[in-house]
């Protein structure tokens, strides 16, 4: 009896599939009305939809911060290379200055940009947790075919209500899935 009680309240992840962003956005609204928080909803799609389109909270990406840090590292590396190494290994050519500024800009520019680019790429991987290290994550392969998959975590006690509401807004399929959001 106690186990049954637990089962009714233990949340599970389900997925509802939609063909268009409009019903998917309505589904998000419906789930919110039922009491499912935004953090318990995840949307997967085959194209990038702005959060405004799907009625999702607007969040800023942290990737530019990675880029900035990378650019900083690249900048400092270029300074160390350009000014540090000739000081350690002086190469005197025809009375030319060891530390000429115009050529320094070339190296500074290239390494700063390299740092920015590489760090932005790494930023995407870190922030998106790609590739996954442990555990199975929820996914529906129809996303590749253009479906919009709305994943939501709901206790069994609310499931029938949620299913009915989602079918009303046009969900083509609602089924349980294994795995976690992240």
């Amino acid at each position, binding site marked *: 009896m106690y186990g049954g009680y637990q089962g009714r309240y233990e949340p599970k992840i389900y997925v509802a599939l939609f063909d268009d962003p409009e019903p998917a956005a309505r589904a998000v609204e419906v789930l919110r009305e039922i009491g499912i928080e935004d953090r318990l909803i*995840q*949307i*997967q*799609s*085959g*194209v*990038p*939809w*702005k*959060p405004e*389109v*799907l009625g*999702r909270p607007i*969040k800023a*990406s*942290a*990737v*530019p911060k990675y*880029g900035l840090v990378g650019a900083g590292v690249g900048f400092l590396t270029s300074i160390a*290379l*350009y000014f540090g*190494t*000739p000081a*350690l*290994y002086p*190469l005197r*050519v025809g009375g*030319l200055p060891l530390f*000429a500024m115009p*050529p*320094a800009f*070339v*190296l500074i*520019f*290239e*390494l700063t*940009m*390299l740092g*920015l*680019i*590489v760090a*932005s*790429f790494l*930023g*995407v*991987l870190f*922030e*998106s947790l*790609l*590739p*996954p290290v442990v555990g199975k*994550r*929820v*996914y529906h*392969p129809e*996303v*590749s*075919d*253009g479906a919009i998959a709305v994943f939501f975590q709901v206790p069994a006690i609310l499931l029938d209500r949620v299913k009915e509401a989602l079918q009303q807004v046009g969900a083509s399929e609602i089924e349980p899935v294994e795995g976690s959001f992240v």
Partner: protein
Amino acid sequence: MHSKTTLPAELHGQVEELRKEHLLIDVRPREEMNRMVLEAMEDTSREWKWAMAFLGLVTVVTLFGAWAYLMSTGMGLAGIRRPIFWGLFIVSFVFWIGISHAGTFVSAILRVFKAEFRRPFTRAAELMTTFALMGAGLYPLIHLGRTWRFYWMVPYPNQRWLWPNFRSPLVWDFFAINTYLIGSTLYLYLPLIPDLAMARDKSTGWRKKLYTILSLGWRGTEEEWRHLTKAIQIFAWAIIPVMFSVHTIVSWDFAVAMKLGWHSTIFGPYFITGAILSGIAAVGSVLYLVRTTMKNMTYFIRPEHFDTLGKLLLIISMGWTYFFFNEFILEWYGGEHTVKEIIRFYTRGDIAPVWWLMVICNIFIPWAVLWNRNWRRKPWVMFLMGLIVNVGMYAERYVIVTGALSRNRIPFDWGWYQPSLVEISIAFGTFTLFLFMYGMASRLIPLIPVWEVEEGHHAHSLRKVGKTVVPSVADLE
């Protein structure tokens, strides 16, 4: 989104015409587009296998074989002799760096400006950038002669007391090309991840394993898209100045030298315009090959795309002509004795056939052909234009590199460059290497960015204005 039912019945004829013309109006389900792209990738027919085997073999013999022969025998095999120390290797190096501007220009610049027509062929162009840079990167190694000494360029404390001289443009080249290669490869890879995930979901066997690794577990969540699209924006903005810097620095390899015919303040923009010209021309040729040799590509790559590439080519050709004439007329007006001799040598001397070939291929033919919309829309015409312009651009580099070195201040120091068979073989080998790598990649990665095309489908709709119907674009990016 493009439903004909919302438009009056009498406009259906116009709608059909628009669909035939514009890819982004001609909506097909994502599932079907996925199938079309995968079918094209998996079509490894006998003809394709023979073509790849032939290209691979030719590359091994003409490029790697000749290079090995050159290394084992010595640089004396090359035609470079005093005073012409730079020959076909440097010409080819500059040429391939130029081709590498294709991807960045077509993809990054058009992405920044949200030019919708770019969508189906950005990846085909980006792939060219990566492979062209790989080809270009071989030449400094080949030109070294003793290639195995390459690590002397790497700055690390060593007993040789040798250190890269950061004041040398050759070292700038090293940094600029590596930055561009890494940047453009990542820029190719990032937008590819969602399409690799699609391929993962649809493939079986070794392909599934390969795409599972390459797609990094992509699922298309909001988080993933948010970070990916932000990074693509950053890349598009960052790669443009890097692209400009690469060919500017290549031009400085020449311009910083106190060499008449090279020491010019206009060489940076002149080289960049030339690089973009050859890059766009090459995109036209490659798109034709992709369209005619791969299944289902006539749906994705249409006359409208060749038309816009043709317009771009014409405009860039005009830009190149402007810089070319600017460079030419100022040197001609200067009246400096040796410069006058260089100009005579270019226009009436032994190298004149190459110089005139450059003028005809880069100015006369494009201007005569590309003003005409009907010709621009013919894929085979754009294929030929691509080849012609690139012959012209190769000739331009040949004239600049070897022509200017042939004439110096005192006639004692004049010379004539005759490329050797080994040099010609190696230069030819990089063309087959490029085609080989491109041909292999076309069967391994989705050449069409399906998600970007679908995004374009969502953004486009038809709108009735007065008595007609016109395409309309929503800003969904």
